[in-house]
Each structure stands twice: as structure tokens, then as C-alpha cells.
């Protein structure tokens, strides 16, 4: 028996490791200032500390820890994208997610369920084939299956012809998974703070200090702090924060609504998405049906919920899963989705020296948390755009070199 364990057992005290090691005071200077304590910012802080030995970091958060879109997504993780650039990026994220519970010493409840993208039209079947071929070429497990196979894997689904839009087949992606989103962010925060990173909530950035085209610090509601490098990761407020740094972004902020039913016993194992019907659904570990649809029809900075959303969602949902008629909605919410013209994120260097951006995460941000954190940390530490992030640079809009993921980013827009 290891001596430490024996000593611990015989000790009179059994001190528990504090989950979060908060530090109350802001220092005057940091090596890196990260704006936004959501999953992405915290993951970047963790990887800066662990992989690059940079621990003098402040993560500033206007609200509370992981209280924005990290807590508002529907927790789906997958890599079945359309472009080789997108597939390579999200594939690394899925690989990191698989070992994340061990890495962060917290149970993120990563659960591989299998992911259907249903097709109801010939056009959707063609896109499914396209995605399957790109996926297989990149080493991602995806295949096109017909309606009978969908029914065999997911017996609760209605694939008969007596629906308004019958299921013709699906893109099936067995590694598709769900995870506990709060735990992902908390795990990154806990491990980053253990390595010396400071997380300051209720700390709003009011101004970004720029000198000779170079970012040098931020003015907050708790005073001015200086940083050698500054990174923003503020989904939903990206345009607002970037404007403080003098940047104009290719982003429209549009609400994305979602809801969950009351919890029931396990009945739906898979994650089911239909781009044509604008719906997606999965059953959480707690038994709730987690449901969402397309983004709202127009831009808005408000998390209000609309009856239109629920009507359109339920109409299609009842055709796919008639048993849903027995369930009641438990709660509803919305998140602010930063939609880009090509449905791909914006990551890396900016025209402002020492200012790094992580934005444009629309409806695809949670699934990229580990890879984005890891690669943004690399970008900030080295000052160079990592190969994996090169296609997603802000400068792609200047060179008209977009990464079109509209066919795979989420449900129809």
C-alpha cells in the first residue's frame, strides 16, 4: 500500500481539495488576459498553463463561470462535417472529448450515442453521401443508411410513409455523442486554477487598450490591468468586444432556442437531427428529451422564447416520435448564436497585434471546446496561426476563401 494513502487513512483530518481556487484580487499585469470564462476561454487557459507553461493568466468574466452559451447548448459532439478543413478540426475535438474525464479529473459523462442526420428529400440524400465520403476520406466513421436501417437502429422513430415528410435515409455517424456541458467548463476551470490561472467573475471589460496597433491591456469595472497578450472568447458578445479592439466582424447575432421535456426512462438512445424539418433531439443522462431547432428568423439580442418555435418544433417532432405527445415541456431557453456567412468559426490572429480572437461559434461551439482551447492556446503562446486553424482565420473574408459548412453545421438555416 502506498505510504501516502496509509498516512491519509490514519490522519485525523481528511482535507478535501477545493474545487475552485479563487483568488480575490486582480494583479496589475498578466502574461495573458482572456476575456470570457466560458468553455472556450477556460480550455485555452488550461492548455496555456499545461502545454506551454504560461500560468500568469487572468480569465475575466462579466457574469459568472460558464454562464453563457456553455450552459445553453444542447451538448452534441460530432465530427461529420462537410469540408475537409472542418472534418479535420472537429475530429480532433471528438478525440480529445473521449479522454476528457481522465484529463480533467471530473466526470463529463461523455456518452457515444450514434448520430442520425435524417434525409427527407433527394437533395438531402446527396448531401449525406457527400458528407459520408469526405468523412471516410478523413478517417471519420460516417455512412449513408436507408430508412429500414434507421428503423432497425432506432425502433422508436416513425419512418413510415404516412408522415408529411417521410424519412428516406440518413447520414449515420456512430461516434456522435453528448456530454455534460457544465462539467466540461468546470473541469477546465478547476485544472487551470490548480496550475495558477486566475478566474475573475463579475469583472466586465469596458475598454481594450491599444497602443500603436498593439493591444496592451484592458480597462475593467475593477480597474486597469495590462497583459502581454489578450484573447477574446465571448460567444454572443463577439461583435461588441471586438469593436472595443477596433475590429468589425462577419457576424450576425441570432437567438437559438431550445427546450427539454420532463425526465422519463430511457427510450431514445441516439441523437436525431433533421435539417429539412429543423429539429434535433437526444435524451440526456437525466432522462429529459433535449430538443432544439433552427436559429430564429431574424437577429436579436434577447433570450426570449416564442410560441412559433415550439409550434414548428413539436409539429415535426410528433411525426418523427409519436410518443412525444405524452410528454410535457419542463423548461425552455435561448442562447445568442454568432452566425458567420460560411457557418464556420473565426479563430486566431487579428490585424491588432497581440490580440487573438475566438468567435463566430454560431450553433457549433460546444463540440469544439477542447480542440479550440488547445489550438488557441498554441496560437497565443507562439504568436502563429496553427495549421489546423489556418482555414478559419479572420483574414479569409479578405481573400474570399470561405469554409462553407452550411450543409453540415446544424439544422437548416
Amino acid at each position, binding site marked *: 500500500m502506498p505510504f501516502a494513502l496509509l498516512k491519509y487513512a490514519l490522519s485525523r483530518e481528511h482535507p478535501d481539495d477545493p474545487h475552485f481556487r479563487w483568488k480575490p484580487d486582480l494583479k496589475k499585469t498578466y502574461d495573458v488576459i482572456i476575456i470570457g470564462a466560458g468553455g472556450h476561454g477556460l480550455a485555452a487557459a488550461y492548455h496555456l498553463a499545461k502545454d506551454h507553461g504560461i500560468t500568469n493568466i487572468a480569465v475575466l468574466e462579466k457574469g459568472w463561470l460558464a454562464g453563457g452559451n456553455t450552459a445553453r447548448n444542447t451538448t452534441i459532439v460530432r465530427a461529420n462535417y462537410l469540408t475537409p478543413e472542418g472534418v479535420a478540426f472537429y475530429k480532433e475535438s471528438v478525440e480529445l472529448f473521449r479522454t476528457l474525464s481522465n484529463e480533467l479529473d471530473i466526470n463529463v459523462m461523455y456518452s457515444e450515442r450514434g448520430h442520425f442526420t435524417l434525409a427527407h428529400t433527394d437533395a438531402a440524400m446527396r448531401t449525406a453521401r457527400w458528407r459520408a465520403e469526405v468523412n471516410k476520406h478523413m478517417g471519420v466513421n460516417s455512412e449513408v443508411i436507408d430508412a429500414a436501417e434507421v428503423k432497425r437502429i432506432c425502433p422508436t422513430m416513425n419512418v413510415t410513409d404516412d408522415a408529411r415528410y417521410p424519412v428516406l435515409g440518413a447520414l449515420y455517424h456512430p461516434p456522435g455523442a453528448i456530454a455534460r456541458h457544465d462539467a466540461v467548463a468546470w473541469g477546465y476551470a478547476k485544472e487551470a486554477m490548480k496550475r495558477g490561472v486566475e478566474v475573475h467573475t463579475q469583472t466586465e471589460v469596458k475598454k481594450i487598450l491599444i497602443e500603436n496597433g498593439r493591444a496592451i491591456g484592458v480597462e475593467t469595472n475593477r480597474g486597469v490591468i495590462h497583459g502581454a497578450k489578450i484573447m477574446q472568447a465571448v460567444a454572443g458578445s463577439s*461583435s*461588441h468586444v471586438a469593436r472595443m479592439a477596433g475590429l*468589425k*466582424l*462577419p*457576424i*450576425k*447575432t441570432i437567438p437559438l432556442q431550445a427546450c427539454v421535456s420532463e425526465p422519463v426512462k430511457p427510450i431514445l438512445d441516439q441523437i436525431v437531427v433533421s435539417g429539412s424539418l429543423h429539429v434535433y433531439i437526444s435524451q440526456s443522462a437525466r432522462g429529459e428529451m433535449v430538443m432544439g431547432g433552427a436559429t430564429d*428568423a*431574424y*437577429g*436579436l*439580442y*434577447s433570450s*426570449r422564447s*416564442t*410560441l*412559433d418555435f415550439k409550434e414548428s418544433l413539436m409539429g415535426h417532432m410528433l411525426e418523427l416520435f409519436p410518443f412525444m405527445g405524452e410528454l410535457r415541456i419542463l423548461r425552455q431557453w435561448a442562447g445568442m448564436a454568432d452566425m458567420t*456567412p460560411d457557418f464556420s468559426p473565426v479563430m486566431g490572429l487579428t490585424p491588432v497585434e497581440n490580440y487573438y480572437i475566438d468567435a463566430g461559434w454560431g450553433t457549433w461551439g460546444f463540440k469544439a471546446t477542447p480542440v479550440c482551447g488547445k489550438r488557441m492556446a498554441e496560437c497565443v503562446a507562439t504568436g502563429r496561426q496553427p495549421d489546423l486553424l489556418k482555414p478559419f482565420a479572420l483574414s479569409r*473574408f*479578405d481573400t*474570399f476563401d470561405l469554409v462553407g459548412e452550411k450543409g453540415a453545421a446544424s439544422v437548416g438555416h
Partner: protein
Amino acid sequence: MKILNCPLNGPRNISEFVWGGEMKPMPDPATATDAQWTDFLFLEDNTAGEITEWWLHAPTNYWFIARRNTLTDEIIETMTYDAYLARQKANASGEAEPAAKPTTGGTETGATSA
């Protein structure tokens, strides 16, 4: 259902309309630089607050202008593109707003769409 007041068709359910995004002037195709096209095609003010924006009434394929607050979702007023241009011209020459009032904005029915 939220109601949007179309200058051509009157008050209609907002589901009949397609959002066209914030109003921004198009650069002259003959002289525009790449940077101007990037700005026009991709970059957005993405304003949190009052904006002037394009809307399309899809069934009649009619484009018009609305002023809306993107924090409160309040439609302040709607107007034809001509009315919008006339107002821009009047503002530019420092005169008061044109006497001809544009059609007023949307209203909401019932409490369900709050």
C-alpha cells in the same frame, strides 16, 4: 405571433417575412476595391440597439425598410425604400423630417408571444 406592418400589404404575421439584415450602402461596382466588397458582403455592425434593416414580404416579393430595436425586439416603424431615401436626403441637407409620415411599426397580439 408577432405582427410586422408591410408598407404594401399592411399588418401581417412576421412568419410571412424574410429578414434581410442591417441596411448598408452598396459600393459602386465599377470602382469598389476588394476591401470595400468584403465590408459590404461579410462584415456587420451587428448593433445591439436601434437598427435600420431590410425586410422582404415573401408572398408578394416586396422589399422594404424597418427600424427595430435588437435589444427589446420592438419594431419602431416600417417604410418604403423611397420614404427611407427621402428621409436620408432630408437629414443630409439638415432639414426637418419629411411631413409625409411613414407607416407605423408592428404590434403584438395577446400575451403568448411575449
